[in-house]
């Protein structure tokens, strides 16, 4: 009897083990078949070290993640989340520059609170530093739009960005960890991607400009002189004498209140907050401009006698005078690595951009280059990629061009998922950008033709598919 009982127990036990093993193997197979590829949308987002005077752009970063199960794009049944490694609530709350954002952002975006009821830092869309992502059927990706990522001092070798105000160097290439879980909380896939956010070069000229004109070489002095200069244009508006929050002090002014900016989601200037007052002595009246922020900013700098004679006669081609070049070098993708292509070869130099009236449609498909066409009016030294009419499944949300807002590979995969972020195309000259592709294509069974390696755009079928090919090659780009 005892023996029968023992035998029964043994059978039950071995069956249970077999079932568990089977389940584990099955689970393992299921888990292993999931992949997630995440990218920052633009390859770089700008930030400013201070928000007391005026706001160019808020802390705002976007990550898009595509979850793939074999050859299927996953749209349901999973939870996708992200966490910015270098940005925690404690780190940002203690950061003197970010503190300026915490104080001034409710004035710049009336109704917005940068810290939510739970004490967590949130961006202007409500996204936290660690949060879930939402599926977007148009891009076929999970998105986190408006993450308030900000360059910080990490105390590591990643701190490469020069602080124009003289503080310690900061890390402009943050990291987002992405996790995909199923409904039971089991992790199906993980990845990490670069979250680029950096200061531009504006302060490098504007602080000395202030001191050369009798104002302190500080952000406040620069804002005061900027107001004087702005009053010299046809608007006559001294922006430093605008008091949007009615506290009796000039600023903070959001440039896009008057100059519409698609990067802020605008197609027309929204106008000033209702509480806006003018400081005593102001003789102008507030109005809205029909010109985009990109238009007035680029046009002024390209044409200004002051800019050309005092700072840079070659500003038309020196994009890093303003855009993040201060040891950040935001243009860092394969175009830079393999050739002498410069920003102006795709986008045009400032004079070309003005002549072609590009800035009437800034940040938009009408004015941005594609893989096959330069921007309108560009006299480039380099040829674009051969045109293939069938490899485009783009959409137009009114922001960004046909590389960012496009899917290929039978219309399923975002261009950026395989090729990397715009301006950081694989293989990037920044090692951190290449980690994701290197991991996905790091299987020892995968082989690469001469001159290519695992850092290149995803080209091994078996990264996602099973039993297709382990050899890197150009995958089908066709829509249908």
């Amino acid at each position: 009897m005892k023996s029968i009982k023992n035998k029964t127990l043994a059978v039950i036990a071995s069956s249970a083990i077999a079932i568990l093993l089977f389940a584990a193997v099955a689970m393992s197979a299921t888990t292993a078949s999931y992949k997630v590829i995440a990218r920052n949308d633009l390859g770089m987002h700008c930030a400013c070290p201070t928000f007391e005077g005026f706001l160019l752009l808020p802390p705002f970063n976007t990550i898009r993640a595509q979850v793939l199960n074999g050859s299927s794009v996953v749209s349901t049944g999973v939870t996708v989340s992200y966490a910015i490694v270098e940005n925690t609530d404690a780190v940002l709350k203690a950061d003197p520059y970010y503190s300026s954002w915490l104080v001034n952002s409710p004035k710049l975006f009336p109704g917005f609170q940068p810290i939510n009821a739970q004490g967590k830092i949130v961006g202007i869309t409500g996204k936290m530093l660690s949060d879930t992502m939402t599926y977007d059927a148009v891009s076929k990706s999970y998105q986190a739009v408006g993450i308030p990522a900000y360059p910080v001092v990490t105390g590591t070798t990643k701190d490469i960005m020069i602080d124009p105000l003289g503080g310690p160097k900061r890390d402009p290439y943050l990291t987002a960890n992405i996790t995909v879980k199923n409904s039971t909380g089991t992790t199906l896939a993980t990845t990490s991607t670069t979250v680029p956010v950096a200061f531009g070069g504006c302060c490098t000229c504007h602080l000395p400009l202030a001191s050369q004109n009798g104002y302190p070489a500080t952000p406040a002095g620069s804002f005061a002189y900027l107001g004087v200069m702005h009053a010299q244009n046809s608007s006559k508006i001294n922006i430093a004498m605008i008091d949007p929050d009615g506290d009796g002090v000039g600023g903070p002014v959001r440039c896009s209140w008057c100059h519409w900016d698609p990067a802020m989601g605008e197609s027309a200037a929204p106008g000033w907050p209702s509480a806006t007052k003018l400081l005593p002595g102001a003789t102008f009246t507030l109005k809205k401009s029909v010109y985009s922020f990109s238009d007035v900013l680029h046009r002024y700098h390209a044409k200004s006698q002051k800019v050309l004679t005092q700072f840079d006669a070659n500003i038309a081609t020196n994009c890093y005078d303003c855009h993040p070049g201060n040891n950040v070098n935001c243009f860092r993708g394969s175009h830079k690595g393999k050739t002498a292509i410069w920003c102006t070869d795709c986008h045009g130099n400032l004079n070309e951009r003005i002549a072609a009236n590009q800035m009437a449609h800034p940040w938009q498909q009408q004015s941005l280059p594609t893989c096959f066409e330069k921007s309108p009016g560009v006299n480039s030294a380099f040829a674009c990629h051969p045109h293939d009419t069938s490899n485009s499944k783009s959409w137009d949300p009114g922001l960004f061009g046909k590389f960012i807002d496009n899917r290929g590979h039978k219309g399923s995969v975002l261009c950026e998922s395989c090729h990397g972020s715009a301006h950081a195309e694989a293989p990037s000259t920044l090692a951190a950008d290449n980690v994701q592709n290197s991991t996905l294509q790091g299987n020892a069974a995968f082989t690469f033709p001469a001159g290519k390696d695992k850092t290149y755009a995803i080209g091994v079928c078996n990264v996602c598919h099973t039993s297709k090919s382990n050899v890197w090659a150009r995958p089908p780009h066709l829509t249908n």
Partner: protein
Amino acid sequence: MRKISRFTSTLLLLLLAIVASFASDAFAMEKADAKNFDFAKTREFFQDMESRPDFPVSTVLAYDYVYSLRALGETIEPARKKSIIKYLQEAQQKDGGFIGGKANNDASALFTDIALDTLAYLDNPGALDTEAAKKFILSLKNSDGGFGFCSASRESTMATTYFAVKILGSLNALSSVDKAKTASFIKGFERKETGGFGYMKGNGVAAAKITYMAVYALNELGMLDETTRKNSLRFLEATPCGTKSSNDDTPDLNELSYALQAAKVLTSKNAMDDKKVLTFLGKIYIPVNGGFGPLEGYGSTPDSTSTALRILVEIGKLKTPAMSPLVKQ
């Protein structure tokens, strides 16, 4: 025993610190030597531009290319010379002035100055219509003694007046200028308290670039007096890399270049500290391509590399490239 051990380790640490300090100084000395710059790479950095079908791209880049290669002791190949002259000829507008790039049709004193300098370094003075350039500059003359920037921006500034005086001087046409009036206009930018000149009349700090422009123009006009000279030198000595500057001052590449050029106009060999200058250049040198960045930590650009070479010329580490006269003297 423990005390001795602690004493010994402290002594060792001190010795290490002293050795490290010497090593650091030696490293700084080594850095502060033009021999550490790989000029062959610098040459290649500029010659990379030649492969561009739109070479020389813009007026400023044409100047950067020509000046830099000449400063490095190169002669410009006839084919390149031809391309540059053709570009400059196309950049000259009907009014006689030059533009900065093909898409910008506003000729200005700034780009006219850069174009004529490029031509002088190319040793091909007859290639451009200098008479038309002279007329263009004279058309910018204002009643206050200063000159404007372009036909659409006629306000006199210190910088635009410098361009006009420099160009007219190189074209033997200063007789068309009321020298006393122009000198009086320029002196309105002087900073009596600190010495040097500022960008705006009355307000703001002095800057090396505008000081150079002012003393150059005054010298060219024969109006550089001893008081102005001494005051300007006083200012230059206090700029970063000046002999009376603090070691903590961070130089700005452009400002440094103009401070050195101003010191040369003022015939001073003691205003600037060449060792500090070389140490700074060592910090902005980019060994991977032989270029120089505009600031420490920045990447190299043709403009900043050309400026760095200019600095090396000014401190005698590279030969001054010859400029041929634009008109018969």
